[in-house]
């Protein structure tokens, strides 16, 4: 789930704000260029580094301004970091417009590797290979993450904000009802039927605020029903997405929606907003929530006294829904990528900031402990890497993800591994399956067509084989 979508709250940017901010960025770039030109030009570090960030207002932005920005400037005397926080829901559009106009900051985020590929094709991102050796990124960063940032064996983007889909449950409600998180499809369906029978919505769900969030569910069903091996074969072109194993997964998802297990009814699934569904989850009107690891950052808003209830939450891996699918497996997701503008006058400075933000395990762990999910770096974390102040559930999730991916038990989120048109197809057309305007087979057939075209165009990022 790209970070701007996981942040849930859309804050449209007016044309005036865009012009002002674009002007500031251009002015910043202009000043940077002037300063560097005055110093003899080149790409040496030492001048200002401009950056657009997709961080949400509140804790993530505050933490960045109070800790990361001064920390970097202190560690790199003479280099000023000039960050502009853009509306998460709009940042990709703003980046696209700025880059097309020959502008934009030194450091640029994108919603994920599949989106970055287009910019790489248009030669808008700088190659980062010289910094791989300089900063030992090969040794520090997760290999699969670094591979995702490569195109034609050249590194252009650094994946950031690692995430995965998990099963949250209202642990207080589960305890009161003597329930356990499901470990198989049978257990999951039995649990859902029992909860539904008692007037409790099995899964808090809804796409009213952000229809594109419907993509979470095909991702979950393809990974945990079809399985990562089937996905690997489809993503590498060996099997078409029209294969029965994918069609059956969509039919299963549709069946659950029609039964009212997601959000209470199909209509409510379409209209429930995030605040409402999370409030239901916190209050115990809904028992579980299938969502990305990013929800950990905001779970505190819906549970406990602050939210007007006495409940607590926990999480578990999503269960396999078919034999042959690994028991504890996580679909890999990237919330954003970080790249350097090909027109940057300070690529060295930009690369040094990327290294500062992403590659230092101790520092990254502190960030991740302070603000869950916003700063998840692609590093091989272990239990002892995180400070004691970190929430145990967040720590467990990060370690589990790291260990499972290390063992090859990973799957693929569509917003990370599918090219952009395929991703949009998945988001837009699945609604027609749920309303009965399209069959699951037609949906998958259509996806196969779109994906095949994009694959031919070379827009599919590198796919790592599960178990590798």
């Amino acid at each position: 789930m790209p970070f701007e979508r996981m942040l849930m709250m859309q804050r449209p940017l007016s044309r005036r704000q865009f012009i002002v901010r674009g002007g500031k960025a251009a002015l910043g770039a202009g000043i940077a260029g002037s300063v560097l030109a005055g110093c003899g030009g080149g790409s040496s570090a030492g001048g200002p580094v401009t950056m657009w960030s997709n961080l949400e207002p509140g804790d993530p932005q505050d933490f960045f301004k109070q800790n990361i920005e001064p920390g970097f400037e202190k560690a790199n005397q003479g280099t000023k970091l000039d960050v502009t926080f853009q509306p998460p829901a709009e940042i990709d559009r703003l980046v696209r417009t700025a880059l097309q106009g020959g502008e934009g900051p030194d450091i640029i985020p994108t919603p994920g590797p599949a989106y970055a590929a287009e910019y790489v094709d248009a030669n808008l991102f700088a190659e980062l290979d010289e910094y791989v050796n300089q900063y030992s990124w090969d040794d520090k960063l997760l290999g699969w993450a670094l591979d995702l940032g490569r195109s034609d064996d050249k590194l252009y983007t650094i994946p950031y904000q690692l995430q995965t889909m998990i099963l949250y449950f209202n642990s207080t409600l589960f305890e009161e009802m003597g329930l356990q998180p499901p470990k198989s499809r049978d257990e999951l369906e039995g649990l859902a039927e029992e909860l539904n029978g008692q007037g409790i919505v099995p899964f808090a769900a809804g796409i009213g605020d952000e229809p594109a969030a419907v993509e979470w569910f095909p991702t979950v069903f393809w990974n945990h029903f079809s399985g990562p091996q089937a996905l690997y074969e489809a993503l590498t072109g060996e099997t078409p997405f029209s294969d029965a194993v994918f069609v059956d997964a969509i039919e299963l998802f549709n069946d659950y929606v029609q039964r009212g297990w997601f959000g209470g009814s199909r209509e409510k699934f379409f209209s429930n907003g995030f605040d409402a569904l999370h409030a239901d989850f916190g209050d115990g009107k809904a028992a579980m929530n299938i969502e990305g690891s990013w929800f950990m950052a905001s779970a505190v808003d819906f549970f406990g006294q602050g939210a007007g209830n006495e409940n607590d939450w926990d999480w578990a891996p999503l269960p396999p829904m078919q034999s042959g699918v690994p028991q504890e497996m996580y679909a890999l997701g990237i919330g954003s990528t970080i790249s350097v503008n090909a027109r940057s006058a300070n690529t060295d400075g930009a690369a040094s900031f990327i290294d500062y933000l992403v590659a230092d395990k101790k520092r990254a762990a502190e960030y991740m402990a302070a603000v869950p999910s916003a700063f998840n770096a692609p590093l091989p974390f272990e239990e002892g890497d995180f400070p004691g102040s970190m929430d145990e559930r967040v720590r467990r999730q990060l370690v589990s993800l790291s260990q499972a991916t290390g063992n090859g038990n990973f799957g693929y989120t569509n917003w990370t591994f599918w090219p952009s048109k395929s991703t949009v197809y998945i988001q837009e057309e699945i609604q027609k399956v749920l309303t009965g305007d399209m069959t699951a087979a037609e949906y998958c057939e259509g996806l196969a067509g779109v994906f095949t075209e994009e694959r031919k165009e070379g827009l599919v990022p590198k796919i790592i084989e599960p178990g590798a």
Partner: protein
Amino acid sequence: MEVNEQTLRSAARPGSKDASAGRALRRRRLLSAWLFMLPLLAVNVLVILGPSVATVYYSFTEWSGIGPAEWVGLQNYTDILSDGDFWSALSHNLLWTVIFLTVPIGMGLGGAFMLSQITRFQMIFRVLFFIPYVMASVVNAAIWQNILDPDRGIGSTLALLGIPWLEGVSFFGSQALALPAVAFVDNWHWWGFVVLLFLTALQSVDKELYEAAKMDGAGRWQQFVNVTIPGIRATLVFVVLMTIIGSLLVFDYIYIITQGGPAGASEVVGTLMYKEAFARFEAGYAAALGLGMSFLSGLIVMIFIYLRRKGWEV
């Protein structure tokens, strides 16, 4: 000024000795006028003509929004004609037009007529009617999303009072209700403005016409049909024209509330165009869609102009 006029008149006579001076003055005046207009023209060229020409160009290309555009001729336009999503969206625009040509105009006329009959507290009503119009669309949308929420909104509140017929109804999540529900919200913000437009027009209708009609035995309805409507015809035509064009270009409330969903049930060409440009990255196709809608709007304006020239009182 008078001297200048005399000079100009002299200059108009061929062979006059003041002719060259007059021509020079005329040139200076022309130059001054163009110099005054130049900044505005420059701004227009920059922000209107330039993007318009670019849009026309890109509508003939396949372009993702970044990188080079590939010339495809009329391909985007032929694709539009065979695009089921476009025709579905256009049909929603037409339905939207029908709704807005009837509901807010009807409510506006009725409201203005009733408001014109009172003198006390009229200003209070005018302010109240106008408030939704000046509120930001995102605020209006958020208010109604909460009011119409199936679990926390008016339906569940009425159910607690023993009126269960709206309980659990998901206005924005139902394929059948989504478009009318968004139209309702948009209408809530729009109709008060229409009331004020009609009220202003009503106040310019000669009161003696009403007196004469009364003396002829006309009732309220007959006065409304035979005096009020003809008296505010110009405003009515203006509102109808604005409604049609606005309905073809509608975007904000639909995008904010349903983003065209569920499953395209409230998709209009404006939201489809946005998705093509910024989600599917088909900027060339989106440009063609935009031009198509501009063409339709222009066509409607031309029809009005044509009818007026033919002597129709529109």
